[in-house]
């Protein structure tokens, strides 16, 4: 079976939905972070897929963008983790249901 764009998009959509579900349902901040990473990965996958099945798939261009994106995602994850630790130190919890001080 020859891989087609549709298969990639379905896998990507599934990945994104899983990530979204995790981000919405989990109460632990780290898991929400993991969900966000999954959604990011789904976006990267879409990007690569669209490049690969574009009319002129030149070797470095799409991959380069994806690699940049992953690097930025790593930095973002580091910042996110640091925030989680700071929040934990302050509130002694990582349950996002309790972190509601900014409510109106």
């Amino acid at each position, binding site marked *: 079976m020859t891989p087609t764009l549709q298969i990639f998009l379905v896998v990507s959509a599934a990945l994104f939905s899983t990530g979204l579900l995790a981000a919405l349902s989990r109460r632990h901040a780290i898991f929400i972070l993991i969900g966000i990473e999954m959604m990011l990965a789904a976006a990267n996958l879409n990007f690569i897929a669209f490049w690969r099945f574009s009319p002129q798939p030149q070797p470095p261009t799409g991959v380069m963008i994806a690699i940049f994106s992953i690097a930025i995602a790593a930095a973002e994850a580091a910042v996110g983790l640091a925030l989680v630790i700071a929040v934990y130190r302050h509130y002694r919890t990582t349950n996002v*249901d309790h972190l*509601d001080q900014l409510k109106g």
Partner: protein
Amino acid sequence: MSRWIIDHLWLVPAVPFVASLAILSLPNKQHKGAAVLAVAGQIVALVLSIFAFLPTLQVSGFRAVQNFTWFTFGDHALRLGWVLDPLAAVMLLMITLVGLCIFIFSTGYMSGDRNFVRFFAYLSFFSGAMLGLVISNSLLLLFMCWELVGLASYLLIGFWIERPSAAAAAKKAFITTRIGDMGFFLGLLWLYARSGTLLFYDGGNGCLESAGLAMLGASAASIALLIFCGAVGKSGQFPLHVWLPDAMEGPTPVSALIHAATMVAAGVFLVARVYPIFSFGAIDGVTASLTVVVWIGVTTALMAALIAIAQDDIKRILAYSTVSQLGLMMVSLGVGGVAAGMMHLLAHGFFKALLFLGAGSVIHGCHHEQDIRKMGGLRRLMPVTFLTYAIGMMALSGVPLFFSGGWTKEEVLHVTAHWPVSRLPYYFLLAGVVLTALYMTRQIIYVFFGDRRTASQHAQESPSVMTVPLIVLASCAILFSIVLTPAWPWLHDYLTDGAAHFEIARLIQPALLLSLALVAAGIGLGIWMYRRAGIPDRLRPADTDPLEFAQPQLFRFLQNKMWIDELYSRTVVAFSWMSARLSDWMDRHFWDRLVRGFGALGQLFGAFTASVDERGINAGVDETTLGTRGLGRLVSAAHSGQIQTYLSVIAIGALALLLFYAWLA
């Protein structure tokens, strides 16, 4: 030199004014500084007056004026100025010399007073105001100084403000003279309306010069009478004389100043100054206004002399004698003897200051007792005071030959005798001469002769700071007569622009014998009547006046000042009280209601606008804010703080957008 003093004549009144201000800025304890400043100011003024006097001697009929523009309004310029002529020059000399004696005397007399500093400030102010008055070349400037003199007299008569009688006397003096000043002011306005200038001498255009007088026309008599009202008030003429005896409530040096140099002299001086208005259109030296002056003067002279006989207060007797003498001066002016009147004013200034200071010395010695019935026998205890007082008494009584008052009185009688209208004033004045000699003899006998009574038991002579001014003034009262005698009538000719010639033959005149006889009669009658005063008689108690014993009703009538005060309080004062009550009632029940009605209207309008505000505008604003607040509450509820809720909203939104685009496609 003479040019300089004419240009700087304003310095004469300015120096005492400045001294007064300087004294006022001294601390209350600085007695010495105040006395030194006041006396120094007076000495400077005296020296300047002498400088001012010198040029008037050189030319007969000397007159120098210095006018300046005070301010301009429209095309009118209001001009003031000062004038130096014989009239002003002799007044300056007399005021500063007498003033200096009084100032020095006061440093002794007032030495124990708490408000010593204030006293000298007022005294300097008084002197300055009077000096300004005599050099004024403008009726307006004269009026201003006139009012300043009035103010100073008010402050000084009420100097012992803690005494209710002093406060009342000060008010009485101020208000009574104000009545006269009202007339004066009207006359001033009328004069200005007619002649367009208030300058006396202005190179031919002044209101006392022929061109200005011609513009007055028939209204000159009315203007003169209105101005005379002011003189009546200031110089204590009937019917406005009532304030002058009450003014005795002030310290004695103040009485001396008021009666001799400053206050009362102002009225006589005023008439002498504006005499051309009085005599304008005179036929044989008689005008309607001058006739009024004569009769007022005669009434005053005789009435006051009668009242003086029955007074017991040493200063009150002198006060009434002043009133009487001022009447005499007015008669003299009225019958045309301006020079005689002014001469008597000057001579009177010296001997009346002497008498008042002598009385002050007596009062000081008797521990502030003023009732002559409680004195007696002071002749031996206070020899200097006695001698000087006796000289003053002789001068006032008009003893001829040696005393200045005798000569000037002679002069006045002489001009009065030749008044074409009536001989009556002459006879009344002759009666006045007898009465004057009588009451002065009575006073001298009570105070200085006989046995010592209660107040004079421990009397002693005053210190030299008080007796030296007495001696100076007594010398003046005698030596002044050198320039007054008919043999060498220097002062008379100086004032009337003539040249005096010495002629011994004129010294003895028949009139002199008549006058001598009258004075002798007065003094003799006095001695005969009062020789046993204060000594219990077979029939008469010791404290009863011989006249009171002989004529109780007459005595009571005179003692109560002919009931004039009572008459005034029943009529004028009662009327003013009634009108005050009426005004008060009108104020309370009419005007007040009117005002309150307007107030209520305002309140009503206020209530209306308040309700509009409350119900209309406020309610709208309230609704808007409430709505905004509710909306805010609603929106803030959505902001739950739950990030997962936010996220799901975003996700649902994104999904909805996706479905929307899918549907579009």
